[in-house]
């Protein structure tokens, strides 16, 4: 709860509410009753079969993973999960919002962003992350930098977080670009616009986030 001490009561309340909504929507993704396919019979796991422990996120691996892309057109076409992987409840949420999302309704964008909370995993990496959708093709995100991370490795931190924010938002909504701005002590320290085209077909496990950000025109101030 150390981080909670720096937050106002309203912020804490908001975060709790977001976590509850996200857990309701996303936390149940892997539960048995929501899997579309019939589960395999329970097998005794050998030590080799145990899933590899997920390494904790840090500024040296943050951009390597991202949320799964929501297939809004499939969600529009089908009432039930077409991929056989997504839970029914989550799919129904997509299905309900697909038409509005695909017609570029900004209120629907806001609702999905609030409920899906695509950046929920990144709260440890920024004091605050704000989102804005000025038009249906673009999302703007501003994050307030964490001092310790900024001091640890400035360029790496800004690039890693910026890239991850862009990846998560492009996965969540059918926008073409995400503008990311980093702020520290009221000043802009980083700004870049990532387009979907630039990030398509990349293997992020082998991407240098600083080089990629620079390639996409990032300004480190």
């Amino acid at each position: 709860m150390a981080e909670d001490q720096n937050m106002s009561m309203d912020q804490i309340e908001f975060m709790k509410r977001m976590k509850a909504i996200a857990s309701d929507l996303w936390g149940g993704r892997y539960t048995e009753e929501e899997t579309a396919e019939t589960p395999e019979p329970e097998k005794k796991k050998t030590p080799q079969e145990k899933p590899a422990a997920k390494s904790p996120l840090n500024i040296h691996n943050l951009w390597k993973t991202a949320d799964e892309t929501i297939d809004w057109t499939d969600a529009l076409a089908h009432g039930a999960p077409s991929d056989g992987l997504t839970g029914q409840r989550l799919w129904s949420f997509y299905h309900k919002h697909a038409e509005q999302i695909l017609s570029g309704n900004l209120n629907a964008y806001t609702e999905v962003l609030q409920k899906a909370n695509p950046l929920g995993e990144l709260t440890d990496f920024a004091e605050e992350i704000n989102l804005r959708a000025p038009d249906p093709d673009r999302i703007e995100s501003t994050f307030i930098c964490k001092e310790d991370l900024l001091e640890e490795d400035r360029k790496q931190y800004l690039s890693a977080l910026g890239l991850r924010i862009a990846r998560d938002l492009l996965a969540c909504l059918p926008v073409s670009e995400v503008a990311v701005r980093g702020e520290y002590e009221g000043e802009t320290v980083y700004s870049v616009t990532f387009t979907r085209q630039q990030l398509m077909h990349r293997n992020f496990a082998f991407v240098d986030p600083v080089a990629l950000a620079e390639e996409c025109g990032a300004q480190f101030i």
Partner: protein
Amino acid sequence: MAEITENLIPKWHRELELFSGIKPLLILEGNVLDQYRYPLQGSVARDEIIPLSRYLHTYLSDNGYGQVVFYSNLVGFMSPYDPAMLNRFAENTGTTIKDGAIQAEFKGNSADTAPNVIRRAMFQRKEATAIVLEMASHYITTPERMDQQDVNSFNILMQSALSSSWVRTTQGKKQNLLILLVNKLNDLPTWFYINNPVCKILMLEAPDREERKRMMTGNNFAAFFSGTVYRRDLPYYTEHPDELERIKERFVGLTEGMTFTELDEMRLLCKKEEISIRDLCTVVDLYKYGIKENPWSRLNMQSLKTAKQDFEKRIKGQDTALERTLDVVKRAVTGMNGVNSSSTGKPKGVLFFAGPTGTGKTETAKALAEKLFGDESNCIRFDMSEYGQSHSDQKLMGAPPGYVGYEAGGQLTNAVKKNPFCILLFDEIEKAHSTILDKFLQILEDGRMTDGQGNTVYFSETIIIFTSNLGIYVKDAFGHREPNVTMDMSYPEVQTKVRSAIEDYFKLELGRPEILNRIGENIVVFDYIRREAAELILKGQVDKIISRLREQKNIRIRIEDFAYEGLKEAAIFDLSNGGRGIGNQVESLLINPLSRWLFDNEISGDANIVIEGFNTSANPPSVICRREEDA
């Protein structure tokens, strides 16, 4: 796209509905590995595209069958979509489940072979049962070589169907049902289904036009695109619905003969590559040919404008023929071609070159290949005199499985598979066997051909050129060959007579007017090589020899004017063999004597030679030359 049937139910599904309460043995033949659109509202959403096994499970369980079980000889009995069904099945047949399946061999002597388990299931009356035998084509090696145990197994299956029980369900009485999924009916012993009164065969075919249209309607269409593309493009097409309809129509036309699985894979490819609605049809090429740069799309209009002049450098004296050839190409490029691929997947163009020998027919095809595809090796030539036997179609399209040469595939299908963007030149088409003409009919009509190995080859990016000497000679009343056209006739007269003779050949002699119809107005008659053109051809050939000698050996040749006149008179004296005849004369009058002279005078390079005369009447002909000192 306007007339979409509201509730489109394919024929085979209607037959399934019809006969599943009447015939206890159904054989589903054909496209059994494909996915299918589920046409009803049920346990899966209407219009969802699902594997055949899930389709059958859904339909049968929604219609009162409490046990829908699938059997494969590799795994045994399973119920992948509802494991509880397998538990009941095991209980009702006295079998046990191990690792999620009831293991049972297809043949053998035990009481628990698959046919015996099926017999027990078909006899019982506790639960309406449907058993689907998947991959039933592979239970035996061939129907001709069945051992007694194979025969017994099929015999038990047949008896099970013959005495299948009726079961009372909440949805009325149901007869236990046995369904076999086979690729080809003749994978099963004929006695199993012929004269079998309880057996009904249903044919599963690739989705027809209506089915494919269905995929393009409503929200199904959206699922072809990534969210970003669809959101971005939708407002425009909402304003311009006619344009959208045209794109859909074209896509439906281009995907003729494709399976649901292929259509669904194209849908995923479209999403993955973020293909826009406007470019939807490009996914068909991408899917068919992979990443191959389509030369048609980068064809430069400007370069086509100068094509005639470029062609004239290679082909002399064929103004009208070149003009007509280029017209077909221009129609293809501008999408105005009635036989192009834009709406139907037919070849980009079809040309029938007729005319006397040596007039530039093959050369025109090569020049066209170079112009269109950058290299004349993209003109793939087939000498049809090699395909005169009745079995020649196998050489061209590939032998069927089990025949010699099956592995090699067909010469034509292999060539097009390797290079789908090419000109196919079928030389002397009249010499091909008539079975080959049937194959060509299919290519011209559908733009595709399935080879002996079952691979579909697409001809939609090719130009097909047939050449023929038809109409140059005809047979008189006594069967003697006599000239139909002569050099002293004008080109319009030659053209009319040759065209008329070709029409007579296809309509009267061959009795195949439909072939002529596919070629349409694309018969291009090449004129005789006349004196003016012959002079140009001769000059071109002599210049080429001179420049080659200069480049390769540094031997500079100069022909005195009066000597050249002598060569010209001898070389173009007889033009009955066209340009090829001039080439032969050049070889005989210039190349051979000059080589001899160079050899005799021990000149292998670095020399200036003047040809002062040709002794064309000598045998063999000779040249009168002198060596000039270097300037």
